[in-house]
């Protein structure tokens, strides 16, 4: 784990303004501009963390073709994160760029959903996560292309082509593993079972996003759930496996309540720029 940054007087004032009880909750974001920054960071963190996870397959994938395939997805996601976090830094106006936000921020300040930070597991588990997340992200970015904030709409328009490929590729693998050998089928079912508990969080709205959605800036994610469920059901039907049943959803990533896995991921991801802050390549 990287060490915590020095607490600045501004941070103390911000913490004092926080109106709710939980000590680890993020301070309430009120100003409109802060809300857009927060939204960009949420979207950017999802892409960044999943991109980092996928790149962990480098050197470990079962075959060269799959390795390049997963690395390509990861690089697409890191590209999206660069655009989104750069935009967040620009709107925020505190002199941070995307790199500063990605590499010089501690775990409690990350706003990604819990799904993307989970360990890769085996190949089927990685595919399960990709299938669920990319299906969600495709619907999200398709809707975001109609955002009244032009730069968000532009980023979404570029990303939507990439994500359509991710969603199709992952769905094809779900079908092949699910309707494959006994072992691949079992692993595919286990992978989906593991990740299903993180699905509800993807579509969870809070006052920040709802206010932005009401103004046509953000996407009303709750409205995407029906289409998502239909796509998942169709692919799983083709894969001859049934929908996972998991009783209790886990949420909290958007408030900074992360699983232990994120800290370990950040330790690897942030080590170099934190140890050598002036390094460039």
């Amino acid at each position, binding site marked *: 784990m990287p060490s915590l940054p020095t607490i600045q007087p501004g941070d103390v004032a911000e913490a004092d303004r926080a109106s709710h009880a939980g000590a680890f909750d993020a301070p309430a974001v009120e100003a409109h501009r802060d809300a857009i920054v927060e939204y960009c960071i949420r979207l950017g963190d999802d892409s960044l963390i999943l991109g980092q996870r996928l790149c962990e397959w480098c050197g470990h994938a079962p075959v060269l*073709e799959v390795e390049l*395939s997963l690395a390509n997805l990861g690089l697409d996601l890191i590209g999206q994160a660069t655009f989104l976090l750069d935009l967040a830094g620009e709107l925020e106006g505190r002199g941070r760029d995307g790199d500063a936000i990605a590499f010089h921020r501690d775990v409690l300040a990350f706003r990604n959903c819990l799904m993307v930070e989970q360990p890769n597991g085996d190949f089927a588990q990685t595919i399960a996560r990709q299938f669920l997340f990319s299906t969600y992200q495709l619907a999200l970015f398709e809707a975001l292309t109609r955002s009244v904030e032009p730069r968000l709409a532009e980023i979404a328009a570029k990303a939507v082509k990439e994500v359509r490929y991710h969603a199709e590729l992952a769905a*094809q*693998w779900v079908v092949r593993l699910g309707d494959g050998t006994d072992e691949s089928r079992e692993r595919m079912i286990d992978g989906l079972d593991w990740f299903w508990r993180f699905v509800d969080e993807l579509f969870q709205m809070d006052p920040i996003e709802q206010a932005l959605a009401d103004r046509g800036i953000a996407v009303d994610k709750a409205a995407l759930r029906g289409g998502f469920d239909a796509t998942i059901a169709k692919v799983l039907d083709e894969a001859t496996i049934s929908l996972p049943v998991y009783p209790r959803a886990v949420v909290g990533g958007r408030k900074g309540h992360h699983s232990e896995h994120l800290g370990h991921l950040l330790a690897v991801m942030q080590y170099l720029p934190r140890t050598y802050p002036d390094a460039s390549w």
Partner: protein
Amino acid sequence: MSHDWPLWEVFIRARGGLSHKHVGSVHAPDSDLAVRHARDVYTRRMEGVSLWVVKSTDISASDPDDSGPLFAPAEDKVYRHPTFYDIPDVLKHI
């Protein structure tokens, strides 16, 4: 794992108007994934606008031992080359 997957030959059309050209091969369980693997392995740097994959075992090849009878007869027929024409500069791919 790769031992179970058949080999596919990959052909890429670099631009509209050119023919597909052989670039290499990939392993994949079926033709759909072979196209995706070919995309991921061979078109990362905008190498093409179209992909073909063909199962390697579906390609019939000439026998190297027959190369004499197959190719030697063309050696002394220089008049088959269209080298006696002026080709306009605007024609790029001849």
